[in-house]
């Protein structure tokens, strides 16, 4: 992580007192007991106590806090619900952590423009809850939707099982209000479908809290589909399941969701939640279609034909909504099920071309033997997003080290077959050092110049997403000429 600024550390009391002059003093936390809950996010293997925590209540307070920190060169880490899985809101020792929890109100439901304007710390699911009585919903559904904040979703560009058909956060977002590191308050987008000039809304989405602090979000809402049906299909091999996925897509059917679990995960899930999944299958697939009755029927029928052609060993179609939800219940319990099998598990998040599924799973199984750590795989097959769950023991340092190496090897392989390091969890601190696998130094420098354009002192969420140059250079992937780095104005840590 970035080098700790001891001068800042030594001024903790002064900074706390200054901040108490900006916002309600009870919203500035400085005792270790008060700071403890903020020491980690969803990536719990890493912890760090922040210098201070502030809990602003208005956009003007956020602006003043950032302006103060910018002028005094104090690092800032923004945080929503703290459910992120890549360490994006993990504190730094010398940072002021801005906890956005008090921005928890839905501001406006506008059915005429089919959008909701909300504060950023409203949960993803609360938006759907607010509009479902009128038959609407908010489409992106990350698995943590009960707890994760919409502001965090914007920062991470969260996806979910339905993103093949409905897109990720970026495709469902109309506008944001954002505060830049110098305290500038601005809006990108609004209720109209596009906005003028450069697409800053697109740039901010998925920028992992490095470019600004989001203080308001406007999202599109959609009319809920009339009929939703799912098929539960077993296959004798991963190859068959993979071929089935490719063929369904090639036939022009775009499912709302399409999930595959391997045998290890299916077994764990059955043992844990009595899901009733076929136990003899090497791969198990859930395909869901939504729309009008005839549309869903047509697609389900086609799926059935394609599955049979690809040697499906079992096939069940949901006859009721209850049965459909039961299909999903097992999949949703898959992660906790792994928690029973081992003291800890690490959830990876690679993206691959759909057609490479069998190849990548074979490689993962080879690596599993190499590292002697069990692994189970869940796969958002529709959009090629793979979640291998590596089981390990966090109390055993060697086991954690092996797990991290194993995970890195998987992600490198994903990139090698034409995929991406992260499909929906973000880079954060977890995959930062792997960025050189996906990008060369020119690509990374271009991104860093954008960062510097908006945050010249690199104070906003530093140490996240972009690799520490020295490490990349050691690996020989960043071109360092004559010992001089490019962009000397960019701090290196």
């Amino acid at each position, binding site marked *: 992580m970035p080098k700790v600024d001891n001068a800042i550390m030594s001024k903790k009391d002064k900074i706390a007192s200054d901040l108490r002059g900006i916002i309600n003093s009870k919203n500035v936390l400085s005792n270790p007991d008060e700071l403890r809950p903020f020491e980690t996010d969803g990536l719990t293997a890493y912890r760090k106590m922040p210098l201070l925590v502030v809990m602003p209540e208005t956009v003007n307070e956020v602006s003043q806090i950032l302006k103060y920190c910018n002028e005094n060169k104090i690092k800032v880490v923004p945080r929503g619900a703290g459910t992120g899985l890549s360490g994006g809101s993990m504190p730094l020792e010398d940072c002021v952590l801005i906890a956005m929890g008090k921005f928890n109100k839905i501001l406006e439901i*506008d*059915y*005429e423009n089919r959008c909701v304007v909300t504060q950023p710390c409203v949960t993803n699911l609360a938006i759907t809850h607010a509009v479902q009585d009128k038959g609407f919903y908010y489409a992106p559904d990350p698995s943590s939707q009960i707890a994760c904040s919409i502001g965090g979703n914007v920062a991470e560009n969260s996806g979910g099982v339905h993103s*093949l058909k409905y897109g990720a956060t970026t495709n469902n977002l109309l506008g944001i209000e954002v505060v830049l590191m110098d305290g500038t308050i601005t809006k990108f987008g609004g209720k109209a479908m596009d906005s*003028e000039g450069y697409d800053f809304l697109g*740039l901010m989405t998925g920028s992992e809290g490095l470019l600004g602090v989001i203080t308001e979000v406007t999202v599109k809402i959609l009319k809920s589909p009339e009929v939703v049906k799912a098929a539960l299909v077993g296959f004798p091999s991963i190859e068959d399941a993979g071929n089935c996925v490719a063929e369904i*897509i090639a036939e022009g059917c775009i499912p709302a969701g399409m999930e595959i679990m391997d045998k290890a995960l299916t077994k764990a899930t059955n043992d844990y939640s009595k899901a009733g999944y076929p136990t003899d299958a090497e791969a198990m697939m859930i395909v869901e279609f939504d729309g009008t009755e005839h549309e869903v029927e047509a697609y389900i029928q086609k799926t059935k034909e394609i599955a049979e052609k690809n040697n499906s060993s079992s096939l069940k179609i949901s006859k009721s909504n209850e049965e459909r939800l039961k299909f999903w219940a097992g999949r949703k319990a898959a992660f906790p099920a792994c928690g029973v099998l081992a003291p800890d598990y690490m959830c990876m998040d690679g993206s691959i071309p759909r057609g490479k599924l069998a190849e990548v799973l074979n490689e993962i199984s080879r690596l599993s033997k190499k590292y002697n750590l069990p692994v189970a795989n869940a796969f958002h097959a529709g959009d090629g997003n793979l979640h291998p769950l590596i089981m390990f023991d966090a109390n055993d340092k060697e086991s954690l080290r092996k797990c991290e190496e194993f995970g890195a090897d998987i992600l490198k392989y994903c990139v090698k077959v034409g995929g991406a390091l992260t499909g929906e969890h973000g880079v954060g601190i977890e995959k930062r050092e792997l960025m050189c696998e996906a990008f060369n130094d020119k690509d990374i420098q271009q*991104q860093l*110049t954008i960062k510097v354009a908006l945050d010249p002192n690199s104070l906003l969420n530093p140490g996240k997403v972009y690799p520490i140059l020295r490490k990349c250079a050691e690996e020989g992937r960043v071109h360092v000429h004559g010992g001089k780095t490019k962009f000397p104005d960019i701090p290196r840590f």
Partner: protein
Amino acid sequence: MSMEEKQNSQTSLDFNQNIFKPTSREEIVEIVKTCYRKNIPLEINGLKSKNKIGRNFQSEKTLDLSDYKGIIDYKPEELYIKVKAGTPLKEIVEELDKNNQQLAFEPNDFGYLFSGESNSGSIGGVVSCNFAGSRRFKVGSVRDHILGFQGINGKGETIKSGGTVVKNVTGYDLSKLVSGSFGTLTILTELSIKVLPKPETSKTLVIKNPHLKKAIDFLGKALSSSTDPSGGVFYPDYFGKDFVLNDLTHDGGLTAIRIEGPTNSVDQRVKRLSKELGLLDQELSILDNEQSNIFWSRTKNLEVFKKLESNLLRIVLPVSETLQVIQKLKSYDIKYFVDWGGSLIWAAFETLNAKILSDIKDIVKKHQGYITLIKIEDDLKASADIFTIDPIKYKISEKIKRSFDPKRIFNPGKMYTGI
């Protein structure tokens, strides 16, 4: 010296010419590096279908990318196509047709407007302008379909972002930023674009209706229904005659709503929607697949403004504001139609001057929208702002521009003075 630099030093560039027509990325890199070193501004062109859009600006040299073309990789089952930026859109569409796939964002063809015949331009131009067609409210804009790109920044460095998979949150999403940047940030060299299956059938409900207020009401109800429309337009009386189609039983003002998908489902939804909208048989025509496709193709091509002699403005608004804005604009001599289910107005102004333009901008801004001047008279063009922007965003835009193109050599001033 890196491999790239070695290769570059081997190509010989005749810098005396005014128009460069590179066929390789190495050539583009060399041109840009030379321009960067010598501070020479470049105008970047593809097939020039949209080069009249934007501000006039001074450029010593032109970079013509029309020979930098070709499909690099097309994987129908992975739902993407990777192409060189100068590839004609037409060529891509024809290739996708073979696999019954499409670019779902159906970009506008500005050829009819400017020259009276089709010129859908190059894919690089389509992305650089980010003008999406009638499916906008359902499938997103051009930018939502760009999976990744490779480009050359203002220093001649090759950069990339994204990839070919749909789900990718690795680093900043620069594909969004370069979409709609009118060639001012980077020279696009390669684009990976999401493709989707074509719907089995398309049908269109055409409602005989000359009134905008009623049209907005129909469109609002349709777009908020579970019948899942994929297009919604309103043409006033004076454009009705432009749509002579077998199944169209009237020639006045019309509201049209498109339903796409498997045939069974389309029939069911068309029936349901006409019922939900409370339509009587005599005020309704239903266009079959072929005629429906013709209708939406004409809309996409802005054919009602074919060879337009006056000025054309593109106005994007929250749908709740459209009625009021048009009522205010009617005090000028305008002809317009409404797309995107009510959120997009294409308006032709018989006369336009700086004062009128400034008034229109105020009106649209007050209603939370923005304007792009698509076609205006040359004498006005020199003084008018083609795109609207507020001062804070201008300042941020300046910084972003510099981070890509520090010496402002790419289309300088095309979007805004100083950018």
